[in-house]
């Protein structure tokens, strides 16, 4: 397993396709917590479970004003088909070209498999990673770690988030 980026470091910025003709830049989400869920592959059974679970959790994530992004090396058309089939209501980003470049930035690329790790990151409103976790690739990590991370962000939040918002950079 790789050593993924730990808590305390800035989440490297990136821009990836979210649909075949739309790109999303991570820094566009500054001001809100972001959950990055790297996963090995669309359609594989564990991923399906994991993404289905997160899909059910969106309302809970939104309670923390958090945005969830799924990321794998699958192409944008593959993501589109997967999201439609599973009725996923959150963006799936394609770390497709150059393949795995963003996963590498986060220490979450599996060289031998050519896929992303099953790695989770929670970044705060300032874009600093506050929690990360790399699951064995065959194990669905669930969502309790994400919720705990969001909770601990929210605790000092009233003031922190306020100040983040007021001096947010463009």
């Amino acid at each position, binding site marked *: 397993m790789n050593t993924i980026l730990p808590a305390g470091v800035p989440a490297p910025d990136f821009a990836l396709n979210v649909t075949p003709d739309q790109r999303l830049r991570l820094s566009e989400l500054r001001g809100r917590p972001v959950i990055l869920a790297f996963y090995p592959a669309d359609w594989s059974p564990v991923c399906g479970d994991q993404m289905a679970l997160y899909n059910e959790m969106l309302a809970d994530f939104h309670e923390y004003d958090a945005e969830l992004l799924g990321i794998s090396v699958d192409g944008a058309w593959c993501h589109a088909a997967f999201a439609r089939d599973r009725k996923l209501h959150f963006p799936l980003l394609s770390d497709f070209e150059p393949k795995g470049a963003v996963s590498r930035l986060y220490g979450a690329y599996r060289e031998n498999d050519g896929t992303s790790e099953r790695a989770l990151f929670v970044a705060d409103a300032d874009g600093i990673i506050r929690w990360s976790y790399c699951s064995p690739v065959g194990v669905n*990590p669930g969502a309790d770690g994400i919720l705990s991370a969001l909770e601990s962000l929210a605790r000092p939040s009233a003031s922190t988030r306020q100040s983040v918002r007021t001096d947010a950079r463009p």
Partner: protein
Amino acid sequence: MNGGRLTPPVGALDHVAGSADAPLTLVEYGDYECPYCGMAYPIVKAAQRKLGNQLRFVFRNFPLAESHPHAKRAAQAAEAAAAQGQFWPMHDVLFEHQGALEDADLVRYAKQLGLDAERFARELEAGTYEKRVRDDFRSGVRSGVNGTPTFFINGTRWDGGWADEAAFIDALHRQAAPRLGGPSDDFDDAVPLATRGPRPRPKRMSSSEPALNLTRSSLRRS
């Protein structure tokens, strides 16, 4: 992460089958429309028969509604039946009729079970038990549930597999054995962490599995 510890522990709000004194508590987080839960249903029944008063079984709702469009409603139906003292009969009927979980089916089952069907239908329509089902779901997430079914044995997530009936019952036996005659109210550390490993999933790869067909049905979502 809490390491797969049941949160909150089994309590007064839970649906419990079996003796409170049982040395072994098996909790399932399940979904009435999930084919794997359907596969687990007779295995749990067999475990209950084999283990008798050594086992108490608890069921909590974990409907994956986007994958299984009838799952939330079915879970609420079981709760509506519970409000009339008939949780387990409804639970059984639902798992025995996973392919017929439309509202009309649910009301028909309520009638067959001798429930006040009017009240049942009214509560189902009003979403009376929506929060209850959601609370179960959240407790599951907090407990480290990552798919259905997920089992907890004496408060600790069981990742050892369940699809092999004999092996599952054997595993339950082994968990029960050292505790026979002991107190039943402290579940901590009953399962050593070392026994946990990746959970083998039963035949989930095949594209001909019913799981995939179920996701085609139209989505009921407000």
